């Protein structure tokens, strides 16, 4: 630490300059440096500078929101891997999924991680909502975040629904036939909603590409933006104690 640029050890000085340009703080050994760490690091700035110990106690509520977010990250990464093999074409989609499972190294594990994480995320988001409801954690000042949360639940369910079609097997086709016909029962806008979702009058190529775009781009992006607001509001509204 005593070396200065241009003196004794230029290499070390260079490394220290690079390191120092990235990390603007030392090791967080004191309260002051720890606070500066949270303030100056992009990845840590989501955290409050100070948190009560009681607020981050992992208790029987199991940090369900955190679990949901973890599963979202997992789904994003595994989904990215799946996209390397998957082509949203009615002639190829099913075979691509087979290739994923039997040709790609660890493809079966990746696909199953995506599938089980998807089921898990629906469960954890539901439970998270139930927990917030039963604890009354939607009450002021958190009403707005409750609304954001319901939109996130809706996004999660739509992600689950749109992902269901993509393997293009019999289960997928008829599930989406049934699902979009349910939408058709809505008064006035029902038939238009179905046509809008399918891009056609039947579950065919138009539906597959639409659900694919919704599943891999539109809905994750909406979910991400809502999550940013959700987490920010969690910080601003404070913690009640326990995760």
């Amino acid at each position, binding site marked *: 630490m005593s070396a200065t640029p241009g003196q004794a050890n230029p290499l070390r000085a260079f490394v220290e300059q690079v390191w120092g340009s990235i990390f603007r703080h030392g090791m967080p050994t004191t309260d002051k440096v720890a606070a500066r760490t949270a303030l100056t690091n992009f990845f840590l700035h989501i955290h409050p500078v100070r948190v009560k110990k009681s607020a981050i106690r992992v208790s029987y509520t199991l940090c369900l929101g955190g679990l949901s977010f973890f599963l979202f990250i997992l789904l994003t990464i595994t989904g990215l891997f799946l996209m390397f093999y998957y082509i949203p074409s009615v002639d190829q989609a099913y075979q691509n999924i087979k290739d994923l499972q039997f040709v790609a190294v660890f493809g079966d594990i990746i696909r199953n991680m995506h599938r089980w994480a998807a089921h898990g995320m629906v469960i954890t988001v539901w439970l998270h909502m139930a927990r917030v409801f039963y604890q009354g954690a939607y009450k002021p000042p958190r009403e707005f975040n409750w609304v954001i949360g319901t939109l996130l639940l809706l996004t999660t369910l739509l992600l689950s629904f749109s992902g269901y079609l993509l393997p293009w097997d019999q289960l997928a086709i008829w599930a989406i036939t*049934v699902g979009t016909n*349910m939408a058709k029962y809505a008064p006035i806008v029902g038939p*238009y909603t179905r*046509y809008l979702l399918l*891009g*056609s*009058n039947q579950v*065919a*190529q138009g539906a597959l590409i639409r659900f694919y775009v919704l599943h891999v781009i539109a809905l994750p992006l909406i979910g991400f933006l809502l999550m940013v607001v959700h987490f920010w509001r969690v910080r601003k509204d404070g913690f009640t104690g326990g995760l």
Partner: protein
Amino acid sequence: MALNPYDTPRGRLQHRLEATRRQFLLLMGGLGALGATIFGSVEVLKFMFPGATNDAPAQFKTDITFTELTGGVDPATKKAMIGANVVAATQAGIAKRVNLVVDDAGIYAVYLVCTHLGCTPNYFPQGVTNGTTTPDGDAKSRGVRSGAEQATNGWECPCHGSRYFIDSTNFYGPAPRPMDWIDVQVAPDDHLVVDRGKLVVVRQPGDNSSPQWRLLLDSKKSNGKTLGV
């Protein structure tokens, strides 16, 4: 009479309408931006509704001929030699969701779209009962079925178990109404041509009447007795 010319109803209105050039330009710009936003939103919505689809044509020629289906027509009785209530569940027919039925009166085509949530019901030559009572009893309980229509053959939907008699009347499960019938014609090469875009029998919930529409066996023309279209 007020001294201030603005202090009259007309004057106050005029005063209110007066604006500096900046205010006027801001108003015009704002209105323009609002108009452009509305126009853009409407056009984006319209973009999402394709003006044409790549759906398969509604009308198609089936892979079965009139002669194959009927086994020939008995010149004396004018009935199909193959018998009544014979269903042609051909491979292409199932893929395109159409079953052809020949009975004593003629031929009709059922469009296999379950009226519940749109799956494709499968044809079963026997055993289409409601699982608790005999189909005879079930049919009789509705009071309108003739003997031939109580036959156990019919359709069953794999999605939620709706069941239909051979005339496509629903009798079990969540389906709210009978399946529709579509137009059948005989092509010059003797193949039967069906048109899924042309419904000839559409029955509403609770309508258990037996449709009379048929492709007549002797003239090979429809009798034109459409229902509910």
